[in-house]
């Protein structure tokens, strides 16, 4: 049993999974596997989403009304559930994106401040 990737992997920050899922769905519907793969490839294999977290998150987003789901047939010729952003989901994505850039900015300032460098 070989591991597909031995690259150092990053833990997902708490609360960012929802944002990532919304982002990957910005350009059209995908099924769960596809969402996972998209996050992985777009992060250059640095982020890997556990299925155990991904699927409950998808259902949670559906329940909140940010995604809607439809059954379709996948590339593997199997029944699969395709997820798609709703209008509320799009709005939520921009909210989360703003919050995220604020957070990155704020953390960046702390980490790069003069006193921290001297340390």
């Amino acid at each position, binding site marked *: *049993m070989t591991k*597909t990737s031995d690259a150092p992997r990053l833990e997902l920050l708490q609360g960012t999974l929802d944002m990532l899922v919304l982002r990957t769905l910005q350009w059209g519907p995908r099924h*769960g596997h596809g969402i996972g793969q998209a996050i992985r490839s777009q992060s250059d294999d640095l982020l890997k989403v556990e*299925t*155990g977290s991904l*699927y409950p998150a998808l259902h949670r987003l559906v329940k909140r009304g940010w995604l809607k789901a439809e059954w379709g047939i*996948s590339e*593997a*010729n199997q029944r699969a*559930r395709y997820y798609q952003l709703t209008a509320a989901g799009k709005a939520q994505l921009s909210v989360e994106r703003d919050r995220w850039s604020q957070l990155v900015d704020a953390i960046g300032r702390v980490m790069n401040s003069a006193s921290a460098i001297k340390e």
Partner: protein
Amino acid sequence: MRPDLDDLDDEIRGHMALSVKERIERGEDPEAARLAALKEFGNVTLTRDSMQGVWRHRWFESAEALGRDIRFAMRALMRVKGMAATVVVTLALGIGANAAVFSVVRGVLLRPLVNRDEDRLVYIRQSATGLGAGGENMTFSVPEINDLKSRATTISAFGDFSTVDLALIGLGGEPRMVKAGVVGGAFFDVMGLHPVLGRLLNAGDDGPKAEGAAVLTYRFWTTSLNSDPTVIGKTIRLGPRTAIVVGVLEPSVPYPADTEIIANIVTSPHHLGATMVTNRSHRMTELFGRLAPGTSVDAARAELTALYAAIVREHPEAYSKKANIQLTVKMLRDQIASPARTILLVLLAAAAVVFVIACSNVANLILARSVRREGELAVRAALGAGHGALRRTLLAESLVLCGAGAVLGVLLAQPLVSLVSRYAARFSIRALDVTVDASVLWVGASLAIAAAVLLAYVPRLPSPHAPAGLGLASGSVRITPGTNRRLRVFATIQVACSFVLLAGAGMLLATVVALQAANTGYNMRQVLAFDIPTPAPGVAAPQGDFYQETTRRVGRLPGVEGVALSMFVPWRDAGSFGPGPQFTVEGYTPADGEENPRARFRVVSPGFFAVLGVPMLAGRDFTDDDRSGGELVAIVSQSVAQRLFPNGEAVNRHMWWTDPYFGKPAPRRIVGIVGDVDDENIVRAPAQAIYQPVRQIGVAGRLFVRAAGDPYALVPAVTRAIREIAADQPVERAATLEDIRAEVLSPERLNAFVFSAFAGIALLIAVVGVAGVLAFSVSARTREFGVRLAIGSAPRQLLARVLGEGVGIAAIGIAAGAAGGYALARVAARFFTTVQLPGAVPVLGAAVVLICAAVIASLMPAARASHVDVVQALRSE
């Protein structure tokens, strides 16, 4: 919107298929790809559960999981039947005792009365606060009641009630004395009571011209008359008068007295007499009132107190300064419940202590079990069970145990309620009709839930930081110092609580033993006492001759050694004549500010002292010649002689009563001195008594017969002999002095019994607790004992070691219990006036009992420790 289980499975399968396809496309072997995809996915069931969980309400999820856990808990508990049974029985005792005591407390202290608008009903009381703690209830005289009636505005109506003993003839059966209430016409309306049959008394039954009318109480009608409806309209004889039975009263709290009938004023000649109507100091009537609309009990209290002060100023002669008489007004329901309050609260505390003991014992057992389960819990934690889930597992188990305990406890409460209420009935009549009701279920359920939650938090969960490997690997029990300490703490709590209960029970038992062993100065076994009450209507012959004749006829019966008359059966008639009138003797002058001495006034016939076994110390007994018209004579008790004639010359000196009740002072020559006896108190105190001959007074009413053989065998013959003289004469309540004293003692005995029962339960639980802790500790240390034996410890040393641990737990518990009990008594003393600390004997006794119990509890585990198989012990682990 909400996907079902098949959809979730489909979605997961779809994911797997895509994952496998991708791997195969990358060039992996199909089988390897499938395995890798599975591995990558992780726990399928868990994922599916949490997907499903998203769609559920939180509470639903917890409830469903709890249901699952409960089913699991039942299966798990079936494997440890012994432990489960112990827990359930222990909890049942704790819950049952609490539920029973609580329903009695609720029934007596909290339940409303059946009376209409009972929250408007007040009891008015006149107390002599100057005479003893709490103030003696003086009741009221008719002039006082009339004053209050005419002046009060806050009370819309007054009801009065006085108690008399009447000979009841009619209604079938033998003539008998009954307790009768005599009431004014307003009484039933004020009390807000209704008839179950016929009518009650009303204003038309008032006054001396009315026809005699009587209402039967429900108890008398159902128990003595078999609920016979034809009784209405019958004429009965009440002493010299007649009355018509007009109705039957509904079941209600018989207050102020538990009577058989309640009749109007005209049936009691005494109530029509001048003394009753005009003498302000002739107090024998209880007073009730109904608050006027819109007034509060506080307003009524304020008004009546002010009115009363005015009345006292107008009639200073009727209100002795020394007695410091005061008027109080309180809700009738509080008045009825108040004597029971303390005893019920004490009972409630005892029950709570038993519950604490039961809980800590159960906590012990569960803690020990959870230590054995540490491996299982570690496995669950490793498989992803969160802290919440683990607690839920534990909670499910304790819920099952406590639920079973509660069910059993509620079943147990049923007989306990009847026991406790019969006990509490001695303090409040309301306890008699307490029944098991829904409150028992609520108490049981809430106690069980409280216990379950408590118990679920007793075991420690496997810490996520601790290395779980060891716990997972070895199935054996490893006991940590922390667990051991907790087990011991719980065992110590049990011992401490048991000690408090045992010491309390010991104190009550010591009291009873002391009372029973006390020497009374009477011949207790062979003397029968009868009530032959006066006035006995229809007795043709004059009273003096009736007694003469009775003495003669009964004395002739075979097996009778002696006959005497008196007015007073020791202890049974206690309190019926007050503290005793004042008297003086020739040559005695009281010191300045000192009142004349008091002595009990007793009327006896010749032979009384010999029959009852009271020694004649000097002079002579009364004779048949001491009759009215002859010289007035008296016999005094030793303490009177010693106090007033310190030089021993009492005989042939004179005494006379100075109390106005006796009219003009008439000197009596002292003809004899007898030993001191105390016929009022169970605890014998020096009692000054002065005896006068029956034939100079004319009334007696009590017959004493000294039997050669079995006293009770004489009862029919004595009754027959008296009825031959007077056919309608009631002859009642035959009992030996010994049995009378035991009867009077029975509340004390009952107190001791109830508390001993609580203490016994506590002791039993504590023994189980200590034994359980030691047994567990020993089984967890098998290896240690094996090593000790292997390197040369004698088995006896191990035995002593484990016994020592048990005694150690008991000793610490006793010390804690003594300290806690003392503190508790100090706190209680602030709220109750009658808190006693037990003496040295009960405390030491309780300590000895507990140490012995600890030794017994330790014996089995100790024996097991000393018989450890060395080879086996060393091989294990």
